[in-house]
């Protein structure tokens, strides 16, 4: 699937919906969990709040703030009409022109906006209705470019993990390690990195790093999630500062087995919930059923943005039927009372033969000599 193929699908959905226009909105805060419908329609990641408008003929207009970023937008989005603006809602009014007041408008991304922006969009388009599905339904499968970028992001993540093993040491703070890892991924071409990591003798979860100096015996858990050209890919890894105990090795092997069960269940035609159930089953069989639910765990993986996080979470309430070219994380990421939280996960791309990891090397418990 190409970017243009996807736009054509969105255009067809727009035609079928009865809306004359689809308006996509994003505030420019590029959070891993916040899909970006503007990027879906244009391929562009903005510095400030942005909007994109698609009409039934497939013509796309991009409202870009700040105004001075318009030239970058024009280069990134050939064929798209660019409206430079210092205020995204004023720019949207310009983009809509006379059509805005009378046309049936579907809006994507409104609920994620800061309310001061959402309020003004509603004033501008009082009859607009939520239409996130029109934009995002076509993003279940990644484009060829997105998959290529995910592969590169994965390569960078694996090099980042190697770097982590080289530099992590007692007395280094979590913050310093996380900052170095993000910088390292940037030096390899990543435009961002959701480098969520922490350390401790018994982690309750993976959390943002803080100023705690790491100590010998700590278990480091990390999600390295570089973005390459706007496409995220993630690896979830666990390592020990020092020698791992036999118990930790045994429990990590269990989590790896759970992940392998998830991969085996991820077949075309299966539902996403089946992947979650397969992972849960391995852990439940070992007596960890009560840890297979919140607050210990709420999902066994997730889609990978920034543009779209479809096909969504690897969770029991996700009925999405798996198909080739879908991209998502499979990560058991389990809290176990004996060891604490353990991270283990790979980015998976669906093929006609089932899910395949993008990584060259599967998660294994690592030891860092101290």
């Amino acid at each position, binding site marked *: 699937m190409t970017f243009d193929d996807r736009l054509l699908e969105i255009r067809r959905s727009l035609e079928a919906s009865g809306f004359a226009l689809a308006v996509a909105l994003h505030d420019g805060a590029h959070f891993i969990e916040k899909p970006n419908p503007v990027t879906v329609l244009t391929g562009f990641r903005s*510095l400030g709040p942005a909007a994109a408008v698609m009409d039934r003929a497939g013509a796309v207009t991009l409202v870009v703030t700040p105004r001075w970023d318009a030239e970058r937008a024009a280069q990134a989005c050939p064929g798209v009409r660019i409206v430079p603006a210092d205020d995204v809602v004023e720019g949207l009014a310009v983009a809509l022109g006379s059509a805005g007041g009378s046309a049936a408008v579907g809006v994507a991304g409104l609920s994620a906006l800061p*309310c001061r922006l959402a309020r003004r969009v509603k004033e501008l388009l009082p009859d607009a209705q939520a239409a996130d599905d029109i934009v995002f339904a076509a993003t279940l499968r990644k484009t060829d470019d997105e998959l290529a970028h995910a592969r590169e992001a994965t390569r960078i993540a694996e090099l980042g993990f190697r770097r982590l093993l080289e530099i992590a040491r007692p007395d280094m703070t979590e*913050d310093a390690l996380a*900052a170095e890892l993000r910088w390292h991924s940037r030096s390899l071409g990543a*435009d961002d*990195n959701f480098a969520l990591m922490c350390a401790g003798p018994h982690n309750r979860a993976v959390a*943002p*790093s*803080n100023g705690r100096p790491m100590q010998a015996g700590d278990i480091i858990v990390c999600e390295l999630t570089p973005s390459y050209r706007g496409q995220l890919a993630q690896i979830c890894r666990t390592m020990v500062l020092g020698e791992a105990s036999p118990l930790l090795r045994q429990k990590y092997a269990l989590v790896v087995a759970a992940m392998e069960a998830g991969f085996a269940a991820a077949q075309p035609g299966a539902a996403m919930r089946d992947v979650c159930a397969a992972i849960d089953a391995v852990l439940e069989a070992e007596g960890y059923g009560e840890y297979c639910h919140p607050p210990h765990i709420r999902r066994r993986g997730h889609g990978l943005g920034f543009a779209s996080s479809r096909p969504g979470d690897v969770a029991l309430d996700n009925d999405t039927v798996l198909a080739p070219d879908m991209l998502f994380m499979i990560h058991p990421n389990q809290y176990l009372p004996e060891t604490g939280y353990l991270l283990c996960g790979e980015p998976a791309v669906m093929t006609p033969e089932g899910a395949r990891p993008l990584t060259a090397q599967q998660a294994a418990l690592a030891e860092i000599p101290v």
Partner: protein
Amino acid sequence: MRTMHPTLLIGPADWTPDRLPAEEYSRRLAQLWADHPRAGGAIVHGDPREHGALAYLTHFTPKLEPALALLSKSGEARLLVGGGATMIGAARPLTFIKDLAPLRDPGAAVAEWTRGLPVGAEIVLINGDAMTSSTFDAVQTALRGRSVIDGDGQLAARMRVKSAHELALIRAACAMLSEGVAALREAFRRGNGVSDCILQAEHALLEKGAQDVRSLFSLDGGRTLQPFEELVARRVDPLAAYLAVRHDGYWVDTFCSLQSRPDRLTDHAQAVLDAVIADVHPGVDPATLPRRSEALRGSFGPHPVTGVCTARSVGLSLDDEPASGRRPSAVGEVHALHVGLTDASHGTFASAIVAVTAHGSELLWSSRSHHA
């Protein structure tokens, strides 16, 4: 100044009482209640992008998800942290507030909190406009029957005037910035490519313990600026770049215009900036500083990124709008001043950070001493 916002805030953000003691926060809270004498409490929203007010009152930087501070005038403060109960441990070092809880249902949490406040007491809402609509509506519903005051304007005025502790942090941030620019200049002098120059500068700042670093750069002689999107190996001369560094919450930033040959445009930009700096003194309206620079630009054009000159209050947010409206500068305010000029083929910049003092101003940072 807008830069590409990162998906996760990474960097040292723990509360360090040596640098910002508890008394500093007690003073800030006392000012808040003095500004709102009929208030019984305040609700302060912060998220990874917009959390200047939250950081000012609690020191907390929400690295991952939004947070909500419930500040009682006569009771203990409570901080609700996004991400669930397992995030509390990681959040605890980032604030002096002892009572931390997961931010699950903001409406229910606010309703429970208001029950403990005096009947009839007003509630100050700060940064509420940055909440999503669903959170804002839930909070408003929970506050039904209470008088709710928008506290943004008065708090912003308080935040503009820096204490001695804040000035010390800003000076330290400026010293860091010098390290970053020196690394940028050295990489440029060696003939390195654009990305490598930027990466060297960023790394120097991170090694100095920066809380956050942002950058922009130009591939077309300073005519436009762009964020880091992919590696660019080629060298450019002149190199225009923007660097921002955060230290214990406080952002300082500069534009850099590096070139291997003397450049009349950059000299002129620096001269305009010098004239603007000379105008900084107590009582000056910062919004007038850019206007005065307009007359000095000569035949050169205003740069699209900065205009001829932009003045922004230095503080806990990088995205704040430039100064506007009419208000006199007070002693203790710190302004970031950026001059940008263009000619037919390229653009250039000059930057300074200036503190307003009782006797005029003090230059905390100048791009003049960092030109290649």
